[in-house]
């Protein structure tokens, strides 16, 4: 198991990237943004199942909030149409506001939960909302494995 990192800075400076694990999108409910709750096996020894599932569930709820079609979105849409959509240049849409909240949440999760375990979440918006990328780091100083960052499965690297 990688040693404890105190914060993200330490993680970035002292650790080497071993592999990346991807949580794919769940399309069973259509085109709404939703990530699979399936726990990747490569992270079995790195993090508790419930923590990651909780993170994914919260992210999904944020996306549901962003894409909710209701009173506010109708108002926004009608106002935008009436002004030939110029308002989109001036004001921040609700979606963008929620995305900011999400990125704040991910940063907080990284600080509190993932960095101490040698993991790092990447905001899905930086990956085209296709995947939730989890970078797995190994401490350079540890003698358990070489920091040769090959693309072998994380099972062998997570020691």
């Amino acid at each position: 198991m990688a040693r404890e990192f105190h914060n993200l800075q330490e993680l970035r400076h002292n650790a080497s990237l071993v592999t990346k694990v991807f949580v794919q999108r769940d399309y069973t409910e259509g085109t709404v943004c939703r990530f699979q709750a399936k726990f990747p096996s490569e992270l079995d020894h790195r993090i508790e199942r419930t923590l990651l599932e909780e993170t994914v569930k919260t992210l999904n709820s944020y996306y549901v909030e962003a894409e909710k079609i209701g009173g506010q979105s109708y108002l926004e849409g009608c106002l935008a149409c009436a002004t030939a959509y110029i308002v989109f240049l001036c004001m921040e849409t609700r979606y963008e506001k929620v995305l900011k909240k999400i990125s704040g949440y991910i940063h907080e999760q990284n600080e509190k939960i993932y960095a101490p375990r040698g993991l790092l979440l990447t905001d899905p918006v930086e990956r085209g909302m296709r995947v939730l990328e989890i970078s797995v780091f190994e401490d350079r100083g540890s003698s358990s494995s070489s920091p040769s960052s090959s693309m072998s499965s994380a099972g062998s690297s997570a020691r």
Partner: protein
Amino acid sequence: MIIETKSWEVTRLHVTRLRKRDTKKGSLLHIMKNCEYQQIDPRTLPTPTPTATPTATPTPTPHHGPVGDRPEEPKGKPRRKWHVFPGKNRFYCDGRIMVARQSGVLPLTLGLILITSGLFFIFDCPFLVKHLTSCIPVIGGFLFVFVVITLLQTSFTDPGILPRATPDEAADIEKQIDNTGNTSYRPPPRTKEVVINQQVVKLKYCFTCKMFRPPRTSHCSLCDNCVERFDHHCPWVGNCVGKRNYRFFYTFIVSLSFHTAFIFGCVTTHLSLRAQGGKGLVFALQESPGSAVELVICFFSVWSILGLSGFHTYLVASNLTTNEDIKGSWSGKSGEDVTNPYSQRNIVVNCCSVLCGPMPPSLIDRRGFLPADESVQTAGADIELPDLANKSEINVCTQGTKGLLESATLPPLLSTSCPQPPTDPTVNFDPSPEISTSCSGARHVHHSRGRASTPRHTKTRSKKNKRAALQTANPSFDVPVSPSSPDAGPSSKARGHKGDSFSHLQ
């Protein structure tokens, strides 16, 4: 059937030609580079750069064709992501404005609107204000401004382009595909099935973007991008119409129909008022020559634009895209009981969700700065992989037929897609021929719904020839292929990519 045979013949000829060329050149890598497409073998990926130590000299490799104006930046100055954007787009105002590389006939569209409206304000408005009401130029002005703004927004907005998969993602997907237990020489399946609202939807793998396309996403061959909720590529606006700009496009065509009809009505009124008192139409036209020009333009365009607006109103009400409608994805043509899984079964709700839904942000972040160590990764398909000629599992352009697949090292497989960017031809087909059809309204001729459009589309603009040329540019792909191809099922899982892509050839 005849068309299908023809396209296979064309493909085979092209393969033979390239095979001969290949032996001359003797280099798989050369052909791979020519076709700008490679499958990633996870074992050959370069070691990922640790984030702690950025590489000293990032070397983003410029790939096929320049991306609009990409100035050579000095090494020290941070570059924005649009500089290395892999699709065929052009960027202006430092990435704020983007258009497709082939701007089609956008200047013509803009010119026609400006000229017609200009003539209207110069020739017709003064007369009508004097004889009727001064509201006319006000309404006309409002409609004109609305039309121009929505047109520019449709053209310059990111339609919902999906950024290409990073190399790590692509390798992960390859690993998952390979893990389906495929140890034989055959290429792994390239489709994934997902159940949405009790409908089975096939997700296809995009060889250019190296990812499984989300539902309703399609790859536009003209722009070389995967676009979410892809509707069609419209040459009139010079851009794809997708998730993010469909509402602009719809507003544009609806307001343009009103504008055209309004001008047509005003010109008719103007000329008939002038011709009163026995003076005759010729006299009226002589007095107001501009009106003649407007009359001709409006007369020929009002039918197709009205028809197009009606068609898109139908699409909005049933939450369909032009792409799905043309392919017949949800019309049950294949005899199965299929319904549109995305429809809310209520016209008003469908309209609201399509037109008034939340506006998703652009995913390509074109104005973001490239991190120094990621300048290679963000280039996506620009990456130069090591010589993969010896790797037996490398299937370049794996979409091929049975005969071609027998020897996996055969580079001619590339050739099947080489005439255009090597993506799924079933999707490739969609944008190109239909750009002219759906946008001009001529598609209504073969569209069996009998809507308000007439089969008479006698638009005499020279652009029609241009469109016809564009349409015949892809002779191989003029057969609409339903995504629920007959060979779906277990065989498609094993040879999904092949069956899926070339079902019309079998």
